[in-house]
C-alpha cells in the first residue's frame, strides 16, 4: 500500500480536532487539521486531500455552507463526511443535498468515524461517480418510476411514494448512477455497504430480488435490472434527471 490517504479534519473544537486526528493517524492515515473555513481552504489548496471531515456547527461560516462552496469550487471532487449535531431526518437530507457524501452524528465514536471515512473513500475509489447523474439532482426518472434521492422513496406515475429501505436505496442509487454498465457483485456489495454493516449476512442477490420486487420488475422480464451471467447485474433503463419534485 504505497498511497496513504490524506484526511483533513475541520472542527472548531481544538480537543475534538486533535483527538480525532490522533486516532486517524494511529490507524494509518495522514491527517491535517483546520479550525475554520479559512484554514480548510488553505489546506485544500496546498496539499492533495483525499477526504474532508467537516463539523457542521462552527462559528462564522458553518459546515453546510462550506460544503456547498466546496462543491461549487475547484475541489468539488473531494469527498466530505459531515459531523452533525442532530440526527434528524431533515438535517441528514440537508447535509446530503449540500453535497456531503456521508455524515456522523455527535457524539460519535472514533471507530464509527473511521468506518465511515473508509467506506466513502472505498466507494469513490472503486467506482468514480458518473458525473452526469451525481450532480445532486433531486429526482431521477427511469421507466415508470422517479427516485427522490433526498426523501429516499420511489414515486409512481400518480405521485404516490413508495419508501425504500436503506440498503435498497443505496443499491438503486448505485444502479441509476451507472446505468447500462455491468456491476459485479463485489462492487455492489462494497458500494451498498451502509452504516452498521447492515448487509452482514445478506447476499447481493437477495437484495437485488427485493429491489426488483419494489420496482414491480418480474424476475423473468427483468425490465429494470438484468442479470449478466457470471458477471453481475446491469441497470438497463435509460435514466433522466428531473428538477425538483415541487
Amino acid at each position, binding site marked *: 500500500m504505497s498511497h496513504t490517504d490524506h484526511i483533513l479534519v475541520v472542527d472548531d473544537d481544538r480537543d475534538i480536532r486533535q483527538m480525532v486526528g490522533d486516532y486517524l493517524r494511529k490507524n494509518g492515515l495522514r491527517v491535517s487539521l483546520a479550525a475554520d473555513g479559512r484554514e480548510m481552504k488553505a489546506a485544500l489548496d496546498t496539499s492533495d486531500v483525499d477526504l474532508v471531515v467537516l463539523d457542521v456547527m462552527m462559528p462564522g461560516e458553518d459546515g453546510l455552507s462550506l460544503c456547498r462552496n466546496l462543491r461549487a469550487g475547484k475541489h468539488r471532487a473531494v469527498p466530505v463526511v459531515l459531523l452533525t449535531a442532530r440526527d434528524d*431526518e431533515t438535517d441528514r437530507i440537508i447535509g446530503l443535498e449540500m453535497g456531503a457524501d456521508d455524515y456522523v452524528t455527535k457524539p460519535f465514536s472514533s471507530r464509527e468515524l473511521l468506518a465511515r471515512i473508509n467506506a466513502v473513500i472505498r466507494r469513490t475509489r472503486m467506482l468514480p461517480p458518473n458525473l452526469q447523474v451525481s450532480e445532486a439532482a433531486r429526482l431521477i426518472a427511469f421507466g415508470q418510476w422517479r427516485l427522490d434521492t433526498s426523501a429516499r422513496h420511489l414515486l409512481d406515475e400518480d405521485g404516490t411514494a413508495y419508501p425504500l429501505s436503506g440498503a435498497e436505496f443505496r443499491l438503486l442509487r448505485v444502479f441509476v448512477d451507472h446505468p447500462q454498465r455491468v456491476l459485479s457483485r463485489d462492487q455492489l456489495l462494497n458500494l451498498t455497504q451502509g452504516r452498521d454493516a447492515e448487509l452482514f449476512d445478506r447476499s447481493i442477490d437477495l437484495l437485488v430480488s427485493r429491489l426488483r420486487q419494489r420496482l414491480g420488475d418480474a424476475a423473468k422480464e427483468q425490465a429494470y435490472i438484468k442479470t449478466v451471467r457470471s458477471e453481475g447485474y446491469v441497470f438497463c433503463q435509460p435514466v433522466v434527471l428531473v428538477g425538483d419534485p415541487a
Partner: protein
Amino acid sequence: MSTLALPRRWHWLPRTLGMRLLLILAAGLLLAHALSFALLFYERAMATRGMMLAGMAQDVPLSVALLERLSPAERVEWLPQLQRRTYRYLLRPALPGTPLASDRARQVTALIDRSLGYRYALRPRAVSASPERYEVELTLADGQPLTLEVTPSLLPIARWLPWVLAAQVALLLACVWLAVRLATRPLAQLASAAERLDPAGGSIAMAQDGPLEVAQAARALNALQARVSAHVAERMQILAAISHDLQTPITRLRLRLEALDESEVQARLLDDVGQLGQLVREGIQYARSANVALGPAVRLDLPAFLGSLVDDYQDMGKPVQLGELAQVALQAHPQVLRRIVQNLVDNALAYAGSAEAGVRVEAGGRVCIDVLDRGPGIPEAALAAVLQPFHRLETSRGRETGGTGLGLAIAQQLTQALGGRLRLANRTDGGLRVTVELEAAQATPPGAV
C-alpha cells in the same frame, strides 16, 4: 357550594344558552302580546256595550210607541225595520225560559223598564246561556204580546285579524331567534377556537372582529395563546440549547475514553457516555417535536413504507416482523411518520425484545398503524402516564433497558403534529399494542395501480 348548577326543578330547561334565551324572550313577548290583545278586547267590549245601551234607551221607547199606534197587520210589516244588530221585536209571548242569570241582562232589563217610564210590566226570561240570549215580554195596550229578543254580541272581528296576529307573532319569533343567534354564535366560535388552541403555537389566531364584547374576548384569547406559545417555545428552546451544548463535551469525553487502554472500567464509562449521548439526542428530538417542520406531504403507500422500515431493522439483525398489511395510501409526511414508528419499534425492542408492525383500516375509515410486542405490557393505571416525557416505569422496565423515557413522548408529540392520535393498550393475550391513528380524510382505498 356550587351556584352554577341549576336547582333540581329547573332541569327541564334546555341546556343551551341559545335555547334558553329563545324560550325566555319568546315566552315574555307572547305573554305581553296576549295581555295587550286582552286589553284591546276588553276596551272594545266596554265600548260596544256602552253604545248598545245608549242606543237602546232611545230606540226602545220609540219603537214601542210606534207599534202601539199601528194595527196588528201593519206591525208585522214594520218589525224588520225596527230590528237592530243585537235585538229584535217579536209578536209572541216570551219562550218559557229561566229567570235572568247574568247581571248584564238584569241591567239591560232595568234600562228598558226605565226608558219605557215603568208603564209596562216586563217579564224577562233567559233562553240560552251560551251564546247568551234572553227575551223580555210586555203586553201592548191592545193585548198583543210583544217580545224583545236580545242577543248581546261584540262587533264581529275582521276575518284577516287572526292572520295579522299570527304574522306578528311569527315576526317576533324570527327577530328573537336572530338576536339569540347573534348573541350566541360568537360564543360558540370562541369555544371552538379555544378548543383548537395549540400550546405549541401552531394554530391560527382568532378573528378579532364581530361585536365588541366578542372581539375583546377573542383578543384576550389570542393574547393568552401567544403567552402560552411563548412559554412552551422558551421551555423547548432551553431544553434544546442545553442538550445541544452538552454534545461537544460528551463528544470530547467519548473520544478521550476511547483513547485510553481497553479495560473493564473504560467499557463501563463508554457505556455511561453512550447513555448520556442518547439522552441528549432524544432531549433535542423531544424539544423539536413540539413544532416539527413537517415539510411537504406526499401520498404515501403504507405497506411499502412499513416494509422498508422493517427491512431496515432486519438488515441490522433486529427481530422486527411485518403484521397485517392493509393496502392503503394516505397523504403523509414520510420522515415524521418514520420517526414515530421507529420510536415505537425501538421501544418495543427495548422492553419486549421483538416487535411487529402493521397497518389496518378501522371501521369509520381511520388508518391505524400498529406496533405490537409480546413484552410485559404496561399496568392499565400507567397507560396514560408513560406518554409523559421522562416517565419510566419503576418495575421491570429498569435502567438496564437503556431507554430515556422520551421515545413515547416524542412519538406522541409528532403524531399530534400530524393531526393524529397515539393510543396504548395492553393486548388481551399479552404484550402491548401502540396505535398511531391517522386522519381518514386523506386516506385512499386500494386500487391504485
